């Protein structure tokens, strides 16, 4: 398809408002805070209108005058269209919104649409649509014509002469899109159950209809809605800026120096999400203004539905204050600095009570000053350095890119690159300049050299230092510019050496927990090989695997998600009833390592975990950071923490860092009824899980199924699940760990084995009696699993082992009698039982019964 001209388009939306469109439809909502499924019931019309509104919102977003649309509804109570006016017929088709550039009112008008009691004929609507559009575009032949039909296909269609309509569309070069509510779609993999005959016939007809249209498509609404969220890249053509490439002194030694006319344009430019506008509820009358938000919601019941709440857009305003009345002694300066910080806090909205300077209880006496009274200047420590212009005279510089020298590309330090990359081209208007430029680029390319250069964009502007690297393409040569740091921009922090460790006696250490051993290095090498992405991408035309991840297909999630959210809130009137749908899968495609690679690297990762024995250090104090930044901990904190190095003693790594759940956690468990606590508790577990356990089955748990951790409101101390390094079941929540593993399904043997070991471990610990009930529960579940998953021998061996341990000294007779008390249900699995579940057992039924006696 030839490139479409942006804008210069009239899109007609033909919307079905027949009675069936008023039927309720269950739509999936994004999972709730507890990952529970949520659905909502809205009418088919409301659902389908979302698509129309998103399309119109896109036009509003782009803001082109030549991007217009009109809306025609069919199945309307009245009849109002140009064909009817002239020739009659075409009943119940109504020109609802005349063709124009859409705005926010267009959207709210769409919201007012309701399904009626009258059927409308989609073919009538198409004909009216074509005609209305044609009349509007009578003198604008070159405009693009689009028609979008939205219907559920439940209304009768009068199939008469429809081929003539298709011919008309093709002659006018109209492109046609049919969006069907719950149409079957092979592509999307959707088939509607219990479809009516009427709809079946109509769907078949629409497909036939579209097949005759030169430029037509029919699809199902759900897919269309998802596609509206597909990230699309706004192609920005970089503007060419003129400058000069110089070498040597062109003023006094012109014949031994040169100055080429070159153009520069951006090669990378950071795109940012569009900024949000700020709104707040406008308090209209004294009654309302005295009520807070909760009260407003309560009012919903009492008040008539016509009550409205107005949201006003806010404007930003800067105000200036000065501290008054402080004692003017030497300490004053320091004090003022402290106050600065309070103000900073205040701006973050943390410090509510000191918000308004007029409030009497304010400690610093802030006085508002008008901007006009202020003088610009700089602070030189505590000294005031006046500078009324806001800047001192700039250094005299001359526009152009001056080459300072060359060096070999292999010595280039990639990490010094400071920012966006620019292309440098020869002057497109001069062949001579192009030849000269090309010779330099090619010579540099041949030598594999990079130039050091100094760039001034405009006379008198501050210069930048950078490098120019040659690029030789098929038909053009160019240079790429990367800004490099000045001496001032480089921070030379010292870091402890990772390899070269010296003890106090000045001896170099070769063995230390910080230094990886040969075994650890080998494990890491294998892991790096297994996680290689060079052959993890899609296959190319020749069937060779390509590398996974391409910057050209990695979309900025925040830019596109924000755009989707903006579109969404513009088209819905209540976000709690109609929350934002999930992001388009394309946006997340690089968020996780490809499954193949995960699978391939599973063993290598296990090996790494086993030999490296990395352990999370329990946090001593949970610090809540008010500023919300993931800041590094303060030096002071670290000094207070005892940085023990458990890996000093490799053999000791079996020791659990914490054995029993912390009191906090017990409390959380106890109050499971309280949903909020439960939520946090669960969240915590899941977080821990992510870190500690699921390693054994990386691919078994696709991302979708686990909730994304919602941002923690406070940093509660993390609980150590008490897992020994090579175990997947911890002693803190053995059952929960076990269930999770079983749910993932592929490490059953290991899970059974570990849970068995953990149960014995706990039972043998002193004071284990408070956990007996929990242990019995574990055993019941373990037995059930063993039976179903053919781990019968494991169970039987475990039970014998448990009996031995409990009945010998020191043992736990009490627990064993409790187990016996449960009876047959916890005994050895007999052959009879095993057979029923498709397994085998060496234990006879009587042996099982007698085991407990």
């Amino acid at each position, binding site marked *: 398809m030839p490139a479409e001209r942006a804008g210069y388009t009239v899109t007609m939306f033909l919307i079905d408002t027949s009675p069936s469109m008023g039927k309720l439809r269950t739509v999936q909502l994004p999972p709730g805070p507890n990952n529970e499924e949520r659905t909502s019931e809205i009418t088919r019309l409301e659902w389908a209108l979302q698509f129309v509104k998103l399309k119109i919102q896109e036009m*509003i977003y782009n803001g082109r005058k030549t991007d217009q649309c009109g809306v025609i509804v069919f199945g309307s109570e009245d009849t109002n269209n140009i064909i009817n006016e002239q020739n009659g017929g075409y009943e119940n088709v109504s020109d609802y919104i005349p063709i124009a550039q859409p705005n926010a009112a267009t959207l*709210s008008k769409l919201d007012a649409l309701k399904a009626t009691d009258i059927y409308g004929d989609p073919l009538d609507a198409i004909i009216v649509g074509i005609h209305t559009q044609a009349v509007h575009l009578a003198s604008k032949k070159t405009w693009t014509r689009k028609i979008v039909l939205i219907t559920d296909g439940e209304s009768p269609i009068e199939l008469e002469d429809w081929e003539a309509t298709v011919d008309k569309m093709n002659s006018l070069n109209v492109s046609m899109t049919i969006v069907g509510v719950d149409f079957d779609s092979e592509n999307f993999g959707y088939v509607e159950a219990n479809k009516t005959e009427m709809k079946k016939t109509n769907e078949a007809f629409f497909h036939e209809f579209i097949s005759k249209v030169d430029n037509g498509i029919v699809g199902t609404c759900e897919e269309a809605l998802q596609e509206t969220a597909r990230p699309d890249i706004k192609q920005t053509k970089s503007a060419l800026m003129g400058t000069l490439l110089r*070498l040597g002194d062109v003023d006094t030694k012109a014949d031994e120096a*040169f100055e080429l006319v070159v153009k520069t344009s951006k*090669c990378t430019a950071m795109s940012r*999400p569009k900024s*949000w506008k*700020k*709104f*707040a509820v*406008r*308090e209209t009358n004294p009654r309302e203004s005295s009520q807070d938000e909760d009260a*407003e919601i309560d009012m919903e019941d009492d008040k008539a539905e016509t009550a409205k709440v107005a*949201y006003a857009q806010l404007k930003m305003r800067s105000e200036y*204050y*000065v501290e008054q009345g402080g004692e003017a002694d030497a300490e004053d300066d320091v004090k003022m600095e402290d106050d*600065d910080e309070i103000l900073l806090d205040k701006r973050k*909205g943390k410090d509510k009570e000191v918000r308004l300077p007029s409030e009497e209880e304010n400690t610093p006496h802030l006085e508002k000053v008008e901007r006009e009274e202020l*003088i610009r200047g700089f602070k030189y*420590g505590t000294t005031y*350095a006046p500078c009324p212009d806001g800047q*001192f005279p700039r*250094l005299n510089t001359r526009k152009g890119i001056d080459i300072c020298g*060359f060096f070999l590309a292999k010595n280039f330090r990639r*990490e010094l690159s400071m*920012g966006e990359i620019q292309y440098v081209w020869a002057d497109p208007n001069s*062949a001579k300049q*192009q030849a000269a430029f090309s010779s*330099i680029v090619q010579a540099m390319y041949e030598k594999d050299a*990079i130039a050091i250069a100094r760039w001034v964009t405009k006379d008198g502007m501050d210069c930048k230092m950078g490098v120019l690297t040659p690029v030789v393409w098929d038909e053009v040569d160019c240079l790429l510019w*990367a800004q490099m740091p*000045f001496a001032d921009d*480089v*921070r030379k922090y010292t*870091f*402890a050496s990772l*390899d070269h460790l010296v003890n*106090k006696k000045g001896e170099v*250490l070769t063995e230390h927990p910080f230094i*990886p051993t040969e075994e*650890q290095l080998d494990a890491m090498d294998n892991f790096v090989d297994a*996680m*290689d992405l060079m052959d993890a991408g899609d296959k190319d035309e020749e069937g060779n695997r390509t590398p996974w991840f391409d910057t050209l297909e990695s979309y900025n999630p925040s830019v596109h998600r924000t755009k989707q959210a*903006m579109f969404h809130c513009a088209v819905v009137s209540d*976000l709690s009833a109609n929350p*934002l749908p999930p992001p388009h899968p394309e946006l997340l495609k*690089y968020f996780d390592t490809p499954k193949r690679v995960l699978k391939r690297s599973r063993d290598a990762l296990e090996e790494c*975990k086993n030999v490296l024995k990395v352990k999370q*250090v329990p946090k001593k104090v949970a610090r809540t950071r008010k*500023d919300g*930044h*993931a800041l590094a*901990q303060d030096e002071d904190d*670290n*000094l207070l*923490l005892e940085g023990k*190095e458990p890996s000093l003693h490799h053999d000791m790594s079996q020791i659990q860092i914490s054995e029993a759940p912390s009191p906090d956690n017990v409390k959380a468990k106890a109050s499971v009824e309280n949903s909020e606590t439960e939520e946090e508790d669960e969240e915590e577990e899941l977080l821990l899980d992510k*870190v500690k356990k*699921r390693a054994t089955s990386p691919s078994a748990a696709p991302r979708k199924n686990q909730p994304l951790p919602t*941002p923690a409101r406070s940093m509660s101390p993390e609980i150590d699940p008490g897992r020994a390094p090579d175990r997947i079941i911890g002693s803190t929540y053995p059952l929960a760990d076990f269930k999770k593993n079983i749910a993932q399904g592929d490490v059953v043997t290991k899970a059974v084995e570990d849970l068995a070991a953990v149960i014995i471990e706990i039972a043998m610990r002193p004071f284990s009696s408070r956990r007996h009930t929990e242990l019995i529960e574990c055993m019941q579940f373990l037995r059930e699993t063993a039976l179903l998953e053919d781990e019968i021998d494991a169970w039987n061996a475990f039970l014998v082992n448990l009996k031995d341990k409990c009945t010998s000294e020191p043992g736990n007779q009490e627990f064993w009698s409790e187990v016996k008390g449960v009876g047959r249900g916890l005994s050895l699995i007999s052959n009879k039982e095993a057979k029923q579940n498709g397994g085998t057992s060496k234990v006879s039924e009587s042996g099982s019964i007698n085991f407990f006696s």
Partner: protein
Amino acid sequence: MAPYDDWNAIDEEEDEELQDYSYLEGKRDVILFCIDCSESMQELREDPNYEDTKTCHLFAALEAAVQIQKKKVIVGPNDSVGIMLFNTTRKTATTRIQSELKKNTFAYQPISPLGAPTIQELIRLLDDAREDPETLRKAFPPLQGKRVPMGDVFTSCNWVLRDGAPKTATKRVFLITDEDNPHSGPGSQQLITSARTTLIDLTQAGVTVEPFFISTPDNPFDVTKFYSSVLLPTNLADDDEDVDPSDPSVLPESISISRIEDLLAQMRFHEVPKRAHYSVPFKLGEGLTIGVKGYGLVTEQKKGSYKYFVDLGDRMEVATSRTVYVDEAREAEVEKTKILYGTSLGETVAVEDDEDEDDSRIEGMIREVPIGKRPFYTAEDIRSFRTMNLEPGIKLLGFKDRSELAFEDNIRHSHFIYPDEMTYSGSKRTFSALIKSLVKKKKIGLVLSLTRRNATPVFCALLPQEEKADEAGWTDPAGFHLIPLPFADDIRAATVTKAVRASDSLKDAARAWIDKLSVKNGAYPPDSYPNPALAYHNAQLEASAFREEFDPDSFEDLTLPKIEMIHKRAGALMKTWKVALAHEEAADIVDIPEKVAGTKRKAEVSVDEAEIRSMYESSSLGKMRVDQLKDFLRSKSQPVSGKKAELLERVATWFDEHA
């Protein structure tokens, strides 16, 4: 569309990324220079920089302190600095607010926020000392025949800091001495113990000691004599060191032992307190997570922004600004917590019919919805759109060949990550093993990183760096550079797709002078290029604060190309190349393969540059048509906006400059 001139104003664009770290600047830094004044420190030696002058180590140390102060006062105007001297008999005048210090220690400058007068005073003292080497000896008479116990020195440091430093600041003591064995005599064990105890006190007060030991060829500094048993690893400047004290411990790495000439350079390394930008988990795979801290090693250092001052008569006070959001129609300020977020409502919409049945009505800057409904997002929602609900952390996706990291795949500066044993034990060995493996296999890592709670997740390349020492005594630390990759949204296609290519002979001619101008084994040397614009600004700022006249001629821009050297080495070769260019056949093509389709070309537009020049010289430029003037200006990359008179003037200016 913006006028052409505006496009040129790219320099003015603010890099938002830089603002991100402003919260770090909020934390103040306090440095106490603690300088030894003993006989040997005051012994006069040949000045390393100036001939025929004699200076002492004390002089050099104080001078270094001035340089650091000058830098600090601009970079961190809220930071405080003090100078304390020891092994001098000068006594501290006790004042109301100051504690009495231990004997033979002297607070020359108590901890206070820096200002022009403090710095000027010290500069004057040093100027006098350069004239008369005895000045310092008179000002700070050295203690004869004995030394102050180091324990007393640390105690005094503690008191000085307690008196002057704000509680929340990063507090550091720069200890400068040339004596490696202060307590060699009898009773040394006791003195060592007391030094250690007082140092622990200091550490517990949140102070780190960074020693700068002066070593001379005759008197090499041996840390093992005294300091290695006093300086505990816990008093490291490095905030993430955590060696078990019972272990055959590792020596703190922040000790600098240098020649006196390098003292300033060493201090410069330490001047900025090392602060991590973030501390996050780095997940290598399910169940394998280590802790890392991220540092900004390359960050654009900008000129400070001006502030608004209020003249209070007796002094100038900074006005603090506050941004408020108001509902303009009501003139009501809205509390931050009540602000919701939505899209622009667009132009004012004329509502044709007021049927009032609409679900939501939009009028001007108002959006109305039925009560109980909310068409706007909360701040929390907005954040989740940005972070995609991810928690801060770095997640490994896999590995790729080193060659996959292209030059042009860059969008902003990199970060440096270093393992953090404090959050995950075993981080260092894992990290170290990963570096070694990637270096060996010439691989890079690909990660998804979200380093702050309200940032956007970014794909980054993980470039390993092995430890390497350079000749200047600086060691490149081992670690990974986290290089943010551009998103598809950030990448712009090539603007020019076709151009004339050079012949091989012309290329060879260019190669000749490129060879001459290449630095063997060279690389881009950041240290050789101090930012001239910043230095020029700071010099003026300093002059303004010192109430001195700024002399622009004394300013030297070190970034300018070394023109003379270029001409000496390659001048002749460039001449040859230019001759070759004049004979280049490819360049003779009249019709240039370019031009956008649809742009109608007028016949015989182009006027030769020589022709225009002659018109300019004969002052008959006015005969030219506007489009001809514009063509000419465009070819010279000059703006083409404005009326004919302006164009004429611009053409004339161009010829003036390129006479």
